[in-house]
């Protein structure tokens, strides 16, 4: 944990964004390291165990060489919790997060992945129209700001699924859709990772919630006991499929299942899945109203 103070708030946020992006790519969080280590010890499948050992070696090599864990520097996604009394408008915060992303890409340098969707023309700096993707949560009676950077790799993002189930499909329908989707994804999203699931709301809200779910630390539990129960059941059932590390067979297909939910319409039962690969990169900071920055404050 480090604390720094910088002259202006907007600059502090920009610096923080640049730091978080690179830090997330190089140093995966401890909860994920623990989960990967535990999976490696428990795995009984020969190929699966070998893959998990290679993953552990890779994380150690990234630490030693201060290199990126994975070459895919992702699409930059930021999650912001913003206090009502924080003295900078979200419009300026958005500008600062964008500029921080751009600077990190150019200065490190990081591979730029961002292209125009139709022309495929690269922007060269990992920013673009509506990119970085920023999730906002506003907190009453508070003057602070939490920010989390989750560079999202495309291998796992390509394995995103949405289905508008019917109310009659029920919870069993949700479970079946998740199982079929994860088995169908096979080794493509770099399992074992975190399965993020959004249920309820509207189609767009369900996927938004799935994306929030993948940003939670491994083994965090939804506060709603019904949702937490579904998280546990799906974790067990998915690992029974035997898809295994990198889709080559084994006991460990997922490290964790996270579900976020919203209320929905009487006729709706949406389920959205956003997969996060084993290299579930994530880095956080807390910014005070006077521009002080405290890194590694998880939320």
């Amino acid at each position, binding site marked *: 944990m480090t604390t720094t103070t910088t002259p202006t708030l907007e600059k502090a946020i920009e610096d923080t964004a640049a730091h978080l992006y690179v830090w997330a790519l190089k140093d995966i969080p401890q909860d994920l390291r623990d989960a990967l280590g535990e999976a490696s010890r428990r795995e009984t499948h020969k190929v699966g165990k070998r893959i998990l050992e290679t993953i552990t070696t890779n994380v150690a090599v990234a630490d030693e060489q201060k290199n990126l864990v994975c070459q895919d520097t992702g699409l930059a996604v930021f999650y912001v919790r913003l206090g009502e009394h924080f003295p900078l408008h979200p419009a300026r915060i958005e500008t600062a997060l964008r500029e921080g992303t751009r600077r990190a890409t150019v200065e490190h*340098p990081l591979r730029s992945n961002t292209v125009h969707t139709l022309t495929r023309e690269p922007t060269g700096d990992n920013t673009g129209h509506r990119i970085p993707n920023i999730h906002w949560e506003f907190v009453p009676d508070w003057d602070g700001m939490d920010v989390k950077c989750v560079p999202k790799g495309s291998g796992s993002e390509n394995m995103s699924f949405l289905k508008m189930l019917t109310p009659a499909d029920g919870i*069993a329908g949700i479970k079946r859709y998740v199982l079929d989707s994860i088995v169908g994804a096979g080794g493509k999203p770099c399992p074992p990772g975190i399965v993020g699931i959004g249920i309820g709301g509207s189609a767009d809200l369900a996927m938004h919630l799935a994306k929030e779910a993948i940003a939670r630390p491994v083994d965090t539990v939804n506060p709603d006991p019904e949702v937490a129960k579904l998280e546990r059941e799906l974790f067990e059932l998915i690992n029974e*499929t035997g898809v295994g590390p990198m889709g080559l067979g084994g006991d460990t297909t997922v490290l964790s299942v996270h579900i976020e939910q919203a209320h929905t319409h009487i006729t709706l039962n949406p389920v959205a899945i956003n997969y996060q690969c084993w290299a579930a990169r994530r880095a956080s900071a807390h910014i005070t109203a006077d521009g002080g920055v405290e890194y590694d404050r998880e939320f």
Partner: protein
Amino acid sequence: MAHHELTFPTTEEAVRELHAGDTLTIQGHIIGIRDATQIRIFDRGVEPPMSLDGAALLHTAPNVRKLDDGRYEPMCIGTTTSARMSRFTEGLIRDHGARAIIGKGGLLPEALEPLKAHGGVYLAIVGGAAALETTQIEEIEQVEWEDLMPECLWKFRVRDFGPLIVGMDTHGESLYENVQVEARRRLEQSIYSKL
């Protein structure tokens, strides 16, 4: 499940010796290609400016730094999902003589037939393990089609590149397909009944 060591470029006969589940370490040279590279070769009909004959191809778009003398220094080189590029398999093996495709997640089942017919294997690397992969690349020797950056044609000289697992062989066997069949059997026979 035998372990092999092969120096690339290699021959059709050498890759026909490999079986799904075997492990492999590669010496010599590997050529990096990706979506845009193959779209240019096959969909735009542009002849690649380096030979792919006997080559091991790697599905990659590396992080690199350009040096003052025009060469590129490897920074972080890893492997992308192969399934997107499955349809190029036949052209790579039959028309260009490539012998191995290295990637993660597997090629789609439709690639098994051209691998078998024309003599090519799919080698699985551990996706995301790019920091380790980078230490096995000694030098970027040649870069073509820089306008496609980072999806250029890259020629890497490697040492002890691996561990790789033979995921799809020339005998019609695919570890990915075997795992899928077993997973679907488990769903049907025990898992769905618990929902």
